[in-house]
């Protein structure tokens, strides 16, 4: 434990190293060492961001992405948890799905985008479906393994006490697999976030993915950097939110 304990000086390093990097970047970019058409300075990126905030352009793209991710992620979560519970509980369901799912799961979500556009068009539905798939697999797998990994010793207690199946599911199996399900949700959110950008880059007129893609065509590198920063920050924020949720929900670990 002692080795991992951070001293005040360590925190200084943690905070100041990225700031230092920004300064170097600013210096390199504004000092004419690199072409600003490739690497706009951080100050320029920030100015662009403020400009996009005030003229509503940022909000338009940002909200489009967030809405899609929210809907797609909810669908992916609900279906992942449901199928995960069923296949974790009933061996028959697992037997039916196992080969099919092993193959489907191995297809990168991005690879499915053309097919989904063919089937569902380039509207909102296809993007939501892509996001749902992007979050589905990790939630499914983690739910499944949580359910089937429930401590046999606890299940024996239920047998001794002659508990019915519903009680065993609701009061033992589900809480016992909650940590695993939340891990799945964490991976699922990041999967959803990845796939929304992919979908928007290929077929969209709005969204952060589109914004980045379009900025390249318009030679607006600062806008691309705004988009990338936002992707990083939102991705990190989502991860932190789920971690926080995990701490609250899994109070016993």
């Amino acid at each position, binding site marked *: 434990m002692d080795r991992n304990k951070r001293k005040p000086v360590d925190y200084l390093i943690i905070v100041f190293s990225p700031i230092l990097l920004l300064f170097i970047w600013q210096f390199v970019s504004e000092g004419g060492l690199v072409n600003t058409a490739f690497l706009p300075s951080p100050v320029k990126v920030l100015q662009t961001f403020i400009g996009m905030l005030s003229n509503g352009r940022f909000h338009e793209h940002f909200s489009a992405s967030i809405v899609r991710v929210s809907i797609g992620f909810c669908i992916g979560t609900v279906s992942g948890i449901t199928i995960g519970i069923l296949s974790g509980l009933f061996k028959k369901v697992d037997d039916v799905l196992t080969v099919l799912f092993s193959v489907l799961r191995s297809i990168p979500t991005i690879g499915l985008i053309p097919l989904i556009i063919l089937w569902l068009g380039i509207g909102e539905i296809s993007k939501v479906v892509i996001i749902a798939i992007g979050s589905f697999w990790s939630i499914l797998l983690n739910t499944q393994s949580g359910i089937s990994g429930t401590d046999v010793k606890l299940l024996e207690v239920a047998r001794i006490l002659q508990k019915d199946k519903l009680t065993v599911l609701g009061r033992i199996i589900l809480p016992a697999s909650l940590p695993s399900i939340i891990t799945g949700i964490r991976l699922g959110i990041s999967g959803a976030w990845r796939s929304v950008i992919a979908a928007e880059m290929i077929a969209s007129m709005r969204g952060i993915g589109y914004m980045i893609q379009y900025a390249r065509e318009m030679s607006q590198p600062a806008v691309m950097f705004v988009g990338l920063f936002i992707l990083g920050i939102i991705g990190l924020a989502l991860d932190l939110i789920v971690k926080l949720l995990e701490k609250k929900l899994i*109070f016993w670990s």
Partner: protein
Amino acid sequence: MANEEINQIEIRGVNKNFAIDKKSVDVLKDINLEFKRGEFVCIVGASGCGKSTLLRMLSGLEPVEQGEIVIGGEKVLAPSLKTGMVFQESRLFPWLSVEKNVEFGITRSKAKRSKPADKKKVVENLIQLVGLKGFEKAIPKQLSGGMQQRVSIARGLINNPEVLLLDEPFGALDAITKINMQNEILRIWESERKTMILVTHDIDEAVYLGDKVVVLSSRPGSVRKIINVDLPRERDRSSPEFAAVCSKIYKEFFKDAKIKEPEYYI
């Protein structure tokens, strides 16, 4: 029950074998035992002698394939609310408070659905009985090993079983906590008057607690000797009489000149 019951628990001709690597391994061989209502029975044996398996068969967790076990006139075929069980690990639900863990034990039979108020009272009384008053809201990870085992005992008693089975319940506790818990379980036994069957590898524990000590031989486990401990309670571990009973059991173990791994006899 008014009918004259000679023995509450009868184990007749029980054998058990497990398939390990496709080979059948004998675990228990020709076990015949009889216990009276309210007795405190300790079963001692080396690790791997099948004593826990025997207890699991008594609980209905492990099927009885050869021979039969009868408790209170009924053959054991599956777990029953007539028997409670306490395991070596407390097996508490880590997400439930002490109170809720004990309450979880309540299984309502269709015949007598207990009212919520009664439920609360029963839980309260049991928590009091095991000496955990004031810890109702704590969750298991906040409790010491001994306290967790107290919760487990309360849960085992909640359906008011006729028999409480204890599978090395104090095996994982430190020496001092263990002695405290032994006194606790005696106190509970004296106040509740349940039949208690406790499996242990600790000879001292068996002699301290049991009216009757069943000594099992090593694999396959068979009954080597049944020793009635007639010492008055509260027993004095340092008395020569106590030591005499212990040494009698030790000698039973060491009769097997071939097996001399001392770790078996701790």
